[in-house]
């Protein structure tokens, strides 16, 4: 699958569609995104679990480790920092993160290329 780089915000859904501390999958310009809503923030990362290659991260359990908001892969439970995309269990493994925000009750995502 080829990734296109977008610099614009794409509206994804109503904020109400996101349950607190749970993710959904979204398709933005052909890219599978995992979108999470915690108590006070929105996060978007790639839906692809970099360890297994399956598109499942949106179905992981959301929580915290130390101060970091996290999601655990539902396949083999590696934990990722939602802010940076870094895997907290496997050094060197990371998942791409994207920008997410809420405007007028709508959730918007902007794809980002990790630098």
């Amino acid at each position, binding site marked *: 699958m080829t990734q296109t780089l977008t610099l614009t915000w794409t509206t994804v859904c109503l904020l109400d*569609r996101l*349950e607190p501390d749970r993710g959904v999958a*979204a398709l933005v310009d052909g890219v*599978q995104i995992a979108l999470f809503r915690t108590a006070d923030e929105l996060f978007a990362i790639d839906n692809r679990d970099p360890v297994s290659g399956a598109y499942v991260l949106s*179905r992981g*359990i959301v*929580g915290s480790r130390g101060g970091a908001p996290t999601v655990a892969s539902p396949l083999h439970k590696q934990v990722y920092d939602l802010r940076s995309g870094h895997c907290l269990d496997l050094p060197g493994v990371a998942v791409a993160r994207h920008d997410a925000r809420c405007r007028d009750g709508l959730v918007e995502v902007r794809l980002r290329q990790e630098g």
Partner: protein
Amino acid sequence: MSGGELVVIGNGMVGQRFVDALRARDPQGTWRVTVLAEEGRPAYDRVRLSAYFDGVSESELNLHTPHDGVRLRLGEPATAVDRNRQVVTTAVGEYRYDALVLATGSYAFVPPVAGTELPGVFVYRTLDDLAAIRAYARGRRVGAVIGGGLLGLEAANALRLLGLSTDVVEFAPRLMPVQVDQAGGAMLRRYVDELGVRTHLGVATTAIRPGPDGGVAALELSDGTALDAELVVVAAGIRPRDQLARDAGLPLGPRGGVLVDATCRTADERIWAVGECAAVDGTCHGLVAPGYATAEVVADRLVGGAATFPGADTATKLKLLGVDVASFGDAHGTTEGCLDVTFTDPATRVYAKLVLSDDAHTLLGGVLVGDASAYPTLRASVGGPLPAAPLALLAPDGGGADAGALPAAAQVCSCNAVTRGDVDAAIADGCADVPALKSCTRAGTSCGSCVPMLKQLLDAAGVAQSSALCEHFDVSRRELFEIVRVRGIRTFSRLVTEHGRGRGCDICKPVVASILASLGSGHVLDGEQASLQDTNDHFLANLQRDGSYSVVPRIPGGEITPEKLIVIGEVARDFQLYTKITGGQRIDLFGARVEQLPQIWRRLVDAGFESGHAYGKALRTVKSCVGETWCRYGVQDSVGLAVALELRYRGLRAPHKLKSAVSGCARECAEARSKDFGIIATETGWNLYVGGNGGFRPRHADLFATDLSTDALIRLIDRFLIYYIRTADRLQRTAGWIEAMDGGLDHLRSVIVDDSLGLCEDLDAAMARHVSSYSDEWRDVLDDPDRLRRYTSFVNAPDVPDPSITFTRERGQPVPVRDQSPTGSEPTNGHRRQPVTLGLPEVRR
């Protein structure tokens, strides 16, 4: 002496331990070992012999491990030893030796009275003896045991278990005369009476009489009375098997046995003796611990060591259906000037006696009847200062017997000669729990009676046995369960705010979800609960490696009508699902995408199926065998019971998955003994087994109760399950739960049978609530648009199926297309599969 031909005569407990010990010390194999065994099977655990009647199999009793450079000749007893030619003779050949180890054990002593040769008269020494007793007991009603010592009482209990009404005849004025004093014997007798075993003390058997069929029919006693007995076990003591040594002209001990010195060597420098056949400095020891000590001594000597026999620990502990009897050290108070402290409580039927030195400072020995919980600590304290005030030690549940007070030299595990010092050293080397201590010191690996002390020593060393669930909760699952239950907390957010910290994680959230579900808090996907669930529970299906799900409808007991089978087939065909019969007697449908799940359920639910909870830490299946309905051996309706149990416990959330099975007869085709709770039909009811496990660490279930009516069976399982749900750790199967339980199976029995904690009413009520509030989770989702919303591929593109899920066909069915291998190289074997790798990936649970 260093290497050459080594012949061992006897492959009993000690013979086997000797070979293990030698191999451990002689890794190069400088000794080539031949073991001559009279019995037709390799070494087994004679100490646990009676467990055979509890259904423990021969293979579970096995002690034999094969070693390189050791040949074992089964069923080939030695007939002579020629010391001049250094040759051992058997019926089929000769074996030359550079060193010879006699490990021939003992034989059962049969007193010279008329009739001991009659059919139906047995001794109690080998597995063959027990098999013969079992076969002969069939269809007979009354049995008798000659001898009321440790062995005699074990035999009496065995006859009871075989359904015989049983008498015990003991020549001494009390039971277990060797181990127990008069008052202790009297207390013991009250327990034995209660088991329905009649005792006749202070009388001798004068003759054994046949009946008209030529088999044994009665015992005549020295007081002129006679007892009916269709089967007799003679357990009147043991004698060392010293005939080979005698014939070879070796000196014997004053009361028989192969005379050896403290190095376990006979008068012939090439010949050694170990175990029960050896008279060490003139004394034979009829217990396994001193036997093991002799094995270690000889193994050490044969590789040039200087070990000597450390002296015998004659402590014994007997357990006869809940009656604890223990005796240790100078139990009879024969030391000059010693003091007795005794404690008798007729109400709780506990008797205890400590024998102290004349200054009351040193513990010399003791006797415990009815409650032997202080036994491990007391036994380890013999010869040293008392670990607490005598009354604190003796009073039941005084809790005063703490291993932390023991000196370093005290022997903690006498089966394996491990001292407190050894345990402390292991802890200092980093052993942080009981399993680690077991594998590193061997302590606790034989009779297990020292395990509580190992825990106490870990505590004493300040090794915190952390029970914190995760970084968000400092308490264990069990404590969390109590908090939730007692405080009536119904949400994770309140729980973590009031009793934890942070936002939770993939460890604590599913635990809390499971606790809430066990306490009946509505549908698992209601409100905030949904966010706590693992993906499997969240989608009520099992996540597969490619992100698709599998669907398993419940097929109670594995019984299914042709119509329903056809529906499963049609659903699988229409949704193109890979179909497989599972190991749990049902059918798994793989390859469903999230958005297809509700459509698949709709079809299944309409046809009368419901969720099989394959995704939950919950009841999975109750397997069955076909049973009495069809099978020519079946004695009960195993399918009917399996179906009833599966329907009763379906949906029950637990710390880990729960599995069960029901077999219609003792042939056990349903493999019930590998289940968390397994049921095997008997002529008159059901036997319940608990704590079985297949999986990673297989364990056979323990026999928990016998010949139960269906009602009594269900009541016990109800309580067993709720007690497990309330008290087990996260991801702890019932097997590990029982193994970790203080007091083990006896404790469990006291709680759910005797109601020692007064919990039973509450447990019964909890199960009643579960049964009455059950409803199918799939149907509940189908009925609720809010919940249905979750089953979508993409929140902003519900019509686009996940493009990453694609299938190829294998053996006529769809299977996932794998990712290209990470290096990008194309697989060469024509499949898109990666080769099977051996070894397990590290999976954090």
